């Protein structure tokens, strides 16, 4: 078991390195840097000026070197610029001093400065992540039990009316992406158009003080899309289990229907949805970005959009690292959970 986790961890770290390298490469492509130089310096820079501007700030080093420095495994640059100033990476492009650290990258906790928010990236990311965490918590609270109940009820008697109605509901909900359900929900429940203005159409106020009134719509918007998917997985898994021979064995042993469902079917049926829930995280992130943009809730997803659309390289890198990390950790949890839930694999 230990060996298994270790191997998974190894693969995970390799994946994280590859992904961050790709992000790093894409954000450090020359047109992006050029744009950065122009926004930071001045818009009417000539091509040579851009070159020197970037050269002085270490941007023209080779890509692996830059990546190593950013990661914190290579010493940060100290460059004597053409303009006579000496800039050190570890002093945020200030002059190096005695105490200047040699390494300053992600690993050392130096995530850089955001050009949009004029603040430490680590600072921004942690606050925003907290806000998104609050949103996600409620999404999970609504989505997981709802999806499992729908799935189990639908799957326990395949082909029944209950099954048909609930399956249709879950198909409708998976077919409704967040930007559609969000728009419809806001139009119906937050504008006077249909006379049902029960909720607030923005969640900005929920950042400090989340209430049912201002938080319900964003939560339900994200939850709906994922809910249908998990419910369908649960249903599929449940119907498969319910037709298994051992369920027939139980039935012919005289076990009553509720007991068959609870004692015999449920545990076997929940193995698959568990992994699905965990693997939903990359998609939930999608929903978070859309919903936070739509409801103007300034969380992690909103930050991602701001960073990306304003070419805020350091912030975008920080956000990417965190999201890749979250995705990989959930995958790890899903793998381990699968093994734990399934005695066939656990004890072999």
């Amino acid at each position, binding site marked *: 078991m230990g060996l298994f986790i270790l191997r998974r961890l190894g693969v995970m770290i390799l994946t994280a390195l590859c*992904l961050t390298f790709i992000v790093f490469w894409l954000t450090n*492509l020359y*047109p992006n840097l050029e744009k950065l130089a122009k926004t930071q310096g001045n818009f009417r820079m000539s091509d040579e000026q851009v070159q020197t501007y970037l050269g002085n700030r270490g941007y023209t080093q080779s890509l692996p070197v830059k990546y190593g420095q950013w990661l914190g495994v290579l010493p940060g640059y100290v460059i004597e610029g053409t303009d006579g100033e000496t800039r050190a990476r570890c002093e945020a492009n200030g002059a190096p001093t005695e105490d200047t650290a040699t390494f300053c990258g992600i690993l050392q906790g130096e995530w850089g400065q955001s050009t949009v928010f004029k603040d430490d990236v680590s600072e921004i990311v942690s606050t925003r992540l907290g806000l998104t965490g609050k949103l996600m918590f409620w999404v999970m609270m609504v989505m997981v039990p709802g999806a499992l109940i729908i799935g189990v009820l639908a799957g326990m008697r395949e082909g*029944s009316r*209950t099954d048909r109605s609930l399956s249709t509901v879950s198909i409708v909900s998976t077919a409704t992406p967040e*930007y*559609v359900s969000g728009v419809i929900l806001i139009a119906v429940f937050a504008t006077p158009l249909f006379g049902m203005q029960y909720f607030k159409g923005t969640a900005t106020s929920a950042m400090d003080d989340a209430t049912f009134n201002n938080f319900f719509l964003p939560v339900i918007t994200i939850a709906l899309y994922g809910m249908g998917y998990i419910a369908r997985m649960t249903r599929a898994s449940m119907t498969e289990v319910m037709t298994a021979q051992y369920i027939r064995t139980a039935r012919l042993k005289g076990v009553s229907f509720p007991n068959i469902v609870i004692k015999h079917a449920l545990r076997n049926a929940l193995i698959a949805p568990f992994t699905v829930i965990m693997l939903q995280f990359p998609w939930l992130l999608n929903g978070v970005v859309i919903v936070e943009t739509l409801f103007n809730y300034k969380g992690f997803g909103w930050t991602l959009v701001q960073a990306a659309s304003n070419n805020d390289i350091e912030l975008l890198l920080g956000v990417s690292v965190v*999201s890749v990390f979250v995705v990989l950790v959930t995958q790890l949890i899903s793998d381990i959970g699968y093994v734990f839930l399934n005695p066939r694999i656990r004890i072999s």
Partner: protein
Amino acid sequence: MEELTWTGSMGAILVPLITLTAAVFLTGVVVQLVMGAFAPEVKLQSNPDGTLQGRGGLLGRLENYTGWLFMLLVALIVAFIVIAWFMPYGDAGILGEVSKRFLPTWIALIITFVLSITFKRRLGLYGKLFDSTIGMIGFGLVMFWVFTSIFVGLFDMIGTHDPLQQISGLKNKTPGVVVPEGQDEGFFPHYLLGGDNLARDIFTRMVHGSVIVMVIAPLATIFAFMVGITLGLPAGYYGGRLDTVLSFLANLILAFPVILLFYLLVTPEIVATGLPNFLAAFLFVFPLVFFGVLINSRYKNQAGKNGLLLALVLAPLAVLYFSTISDAGSPLYIWPEALDLFDIPGGILVVFVSVVFVNSPTVFRIVRGLALDIKTRDYVAAAQTRGEGPWYIMLWEILPNARGPLIVDFCLRIGYTTILLGTLGFFGLGLPPESPDWGSTINEGRKLLLIFAHPALPPAIALLSLVLGLNLLADGLREESLKD
């Protein structure tokens, strides 16, 4: 000219009827759900005269009633749609006029359904689809948009105005608004679904949006399947190191948050580097490889036939391929202009490429799983023992027998691609801002959503209905392919 109301004169009778039926139907469904969860098992027994005993009691009756109510509801809605065709302009209200505008689509749909249902026993899986209500509804919704996009895209029929035409004074006006005299050279006196924040006709933009979706989504899905199949088959069939490497790469892409990927790929700066062209050059080569290998593995032993077929298939594909990837402005300008059949704008190309890129790994995983399963069959062993090459086995022995799950996934994936396209539009990535595609129009509309809700709703509902249709269709196909 007066402003149009929603339902016009026939609304007075039909709307309360429909609302009432729908309400009763929904209550019935909910009650039945609650009762069904606690109901005892059905005892299987026939009556003495040989007829089957239905489920008795309240629940049984309820099930019957809700069935009839559903029928009634459908009938009423159909009536609403059909009656509108025969009413003079304006009397049928906005909904009636919208229904009239879709008349070519309705006719095409009716013809398709009548023909399909008549010959359903001879049409294989497609025919079986018409045995399932869910499948039929899904198919209807999908075909509705398919026909609409054909009539709009090829014959310019359904739309009422020009999708880019702005008429002053109609900015953000509510549905049914009258177009001021003399402002419009056209023929249509109303903005059926109102005007957007640039004073364009929302209805026209919505139907024009379907063309873009209907072109990009299926095409991108086909390419994703080509890539996924070409890589997934060997990964599953050979296993070992090849599988480890390819699966790792696939997981790498899957672990990438989609939005982030889009933001990184679909920006003007990235387009300027030519990266999308290189990616396109890589991804679009897969169909060539696929068809080349497909033919070669089968006719390897008959050299003449093989060469002829290869030339016939690969030559046009190669021309298309180079026309697609080579572009005058981009770094990949390798194809003489004379042979360049078309140019795809950088924005569209990058959208297309990213969607293919994001979808391929999932297809890869499905194909790999299917290949792993099917390669253990005896007919694969039989092919091996007569000395068939690995590619023949993969493409002619394994792939055809994996078609069921792949067809189902294909439908789902078109829906999913539509959602992705919408997401791109929603963030204003890739497609030009004036593009009438649904994602972009939702994005336009949502900015003023709290003040003017009507511009965002039609494209949202259109997208919802198409994706829903595809999902229902996939579900119907899956269910029917499992039966018998």
